[in-house]
């Protein structure tokens, strides 16, 4: 049974796409324009960004959908000279960490020659395309680690900015209070160049940080910045020291920290107690918001429909909607919608509100360990002895084969949640975070809300 599922997952729609990284490619490729900041850089979009091509979210339900408008992020890349090369495979509607929940089959990992290892998810196709050298960069989305985790597995850089930095207009929502647009690339120059293009207010997105707030965040960051070449204070969160951390990831963590110590940076042990509650808080919030966001898909106005809507008697519309949703959504998406609706229902209790309280506490605890104040939440007291950045591995375990992942998930689906422990805290607190390759593993660096430049500098210290 399992091996049949694995064979199905390895089905490739396009024989020219060795890693099943693409869902669609443009029929013609524009030659690009000279003289723009992204000229001569090729890029792809995770297939939940709308542009003039189809946008499927790797779902049967949207397999025939074409948007009448484009995502602001995609338009900005085009305006600045980026050359579009296609839409990438992903976990359906962003739900997963392996890219095995896709209507189009699993993306596989170019870093491993056997072709049997997961690319990670949910932005697995983006990570695979960048890792294989097909494009210079890709835009993905990161709700709880969906850019950082696949970047880590595929050996590329994956960056998630502060919540609200990059416009989400035209990006299909999974969990709107957590969703961010992220960048995957092979080098820091490209990451920073693309971020420079996308880091601006968009009035179409109500969660986009206003220009005045961006200016203030920059001032706050500059005020606490020790300056280029000066030593940073780097924290090790003790709650990330879990029994399940693989020996390879422990070794990688130690190696990176020792390297930073050799450069003269200060290392501290820090404690964020709410990290232990963060997985439960995240999966409460994410499933509840997903259930709400995905209630709009009925197959009547657009998307997959079992029968042509005009042929349907109005009495049977609700039955048709139920049929469309039951046949159109994959099993993982259906499960998360059910879990989300149950969490929100009066039958279960008010867990959503409780989860947001945990989130609030987590933000306060992060504010207590960073040197920089958090301008967004009005926590303006600087911690003079606080940290500039935090460091950890990106993933708890090593890159599994597709079969290993599916077996583990079938035993207990919470096993798939466990590997998100290191990436979820930054998502809940809205902090910028980056995964950078380190040996055969990856290191994650996090900084205070709005402190992207210090994050980039710390990344360069390690990469250089």
């Amino acid at each position: 049974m399992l091996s049949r599922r694995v064979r199905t997952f390895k089905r490739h729609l396009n024989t020219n796409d060795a890693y099943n990284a693409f869902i669609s490619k443009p029929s013609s490729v524009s030659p690009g324009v000279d003289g723009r900041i992204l000229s001569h850089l090729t890029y792809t979009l995770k297939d939940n960004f709308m542009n003039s091509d189809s946008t499927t979210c790797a779902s049967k339900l949207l397999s025939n959908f074409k948007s009448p408008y484009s995502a602001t992020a995609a338009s900005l890349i085009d305006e600045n000279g980026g050359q579009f090369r296609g839409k990438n495979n992903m976990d359906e509607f962003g739900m997963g960490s392996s890219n095995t929940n896709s209507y189009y089959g699993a993306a596989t990992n170019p870093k491993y020659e056997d072709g049997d290892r997961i690319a990670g998810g949910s932005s697995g196709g983006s990570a695979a395309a960048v890792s294989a050298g097909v494009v210079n960069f890709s835009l993905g989305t990161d709700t709880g680690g969906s850019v950082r985790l696949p970047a880590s597995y595929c050996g590329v850089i994956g960056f998630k900015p502060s919540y609200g930095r990059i416009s989400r207009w035209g990006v299909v929502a999974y969990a709107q209070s957590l969703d961010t647009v992220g960048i995957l690339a092979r080098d820091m120059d490209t990451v920073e160049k693309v971020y420079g293009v996308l880091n601006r207010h968009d009035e179409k997105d109500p969660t986009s940080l206003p220009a005045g707030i961006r200016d203030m965040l920059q001032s706050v960051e500059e005020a606490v910045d020790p300056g280029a070449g000066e030593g940073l204070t780097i924290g090790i969160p003790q709650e990330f020291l879990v029994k399940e951390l693989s020996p390879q990831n422990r070794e990688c963590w130690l190696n990176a920290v020792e390297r930073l110590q050799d450069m003269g940076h200060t290392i501290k042990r820090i404690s964020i107690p709410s990290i232990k509650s963060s997985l439960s808080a995240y999966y409460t919030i994410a499933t509840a918001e997903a259930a709400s966001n995905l209630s709009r898909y009925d197959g009547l106005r657009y998307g997959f429909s079992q029968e042509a809507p005009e042929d349907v008697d109005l009495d049977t519309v609700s039955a048709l909607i139920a049929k469309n949703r039951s046949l159109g959504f994959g099993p993982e998406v259906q499960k998360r919608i059910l879990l989300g609706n149950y969490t929100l229902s009066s039958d279960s209790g008010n867990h959503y509100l409780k989860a947001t309280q945990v989130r609030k506490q987590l933000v306060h605890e992060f504010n207590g360990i960073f040197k920089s104040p958090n301008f967004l939440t009005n926590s303006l007291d600087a911690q003079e002895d606080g940290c500039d950045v935090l460091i950890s591995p990106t993933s708890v375990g090593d890159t599994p084969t597709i079969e290993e992942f599916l077996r583990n998930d079938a035993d207990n689906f919470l096993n798939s949640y466990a590997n998100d422990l290191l990436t979820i805290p930054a998502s809940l607190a809205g902090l910028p975070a980056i995964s950078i390759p380190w040996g055969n593993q990856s290191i994650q660096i996090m900084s205070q809300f709005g402190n992207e430049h210090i994050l980039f500098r710390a990344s360069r210290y390690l990469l250089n």
Partner: protein
Amino acid sequence: MLLRNLRRYSTTSRLTKEEVKALLKSTHWSIESLTASNQTGTDAIKPKTLSKMLKLSGFQESVSKEREQVLINSLRTQMGFINHLYDNQSDALAQTDEPLHSFRLLVSDHQPGSPLTLNDIKDQIKNQVPDSTKGETQEWGATHNSKSNIEGSKIDDEYFTVKPFSNEETK
């Protein structure tokens, strides 16, 4: 109060290489304490509950017995997992007397600007123009795509109503 709580989470000591090595060899806790199957207190989730949730979620209510059991188990496992929200409650979280509200990372929640007046809203509505970058066209109207010709309904440029059948009509 908040500042006192914040200070508890910072540390002051700079670690030596030996201390880092010892720290990164140590184990603070296990994720298994969250993910180990624990369905205590989830007995209330029965086939009837699942049926209600399937309907609420817009799915077909008739599922195979096998699928029904899988989904009930998923709900029970998830609730066992979510119950860990109530572990490790710090003093600050447990003793808060603030009114409960949903915490978000929106600027408007933390740094509210001037409230909108009715005139502000009227002005915004008056000055609205179709935005092609949002897929809006000059010709678009809320009822224009409707193909319905339900008997007794009224469709014009601005609104669409369905007239209920009167007793006379249903005789």
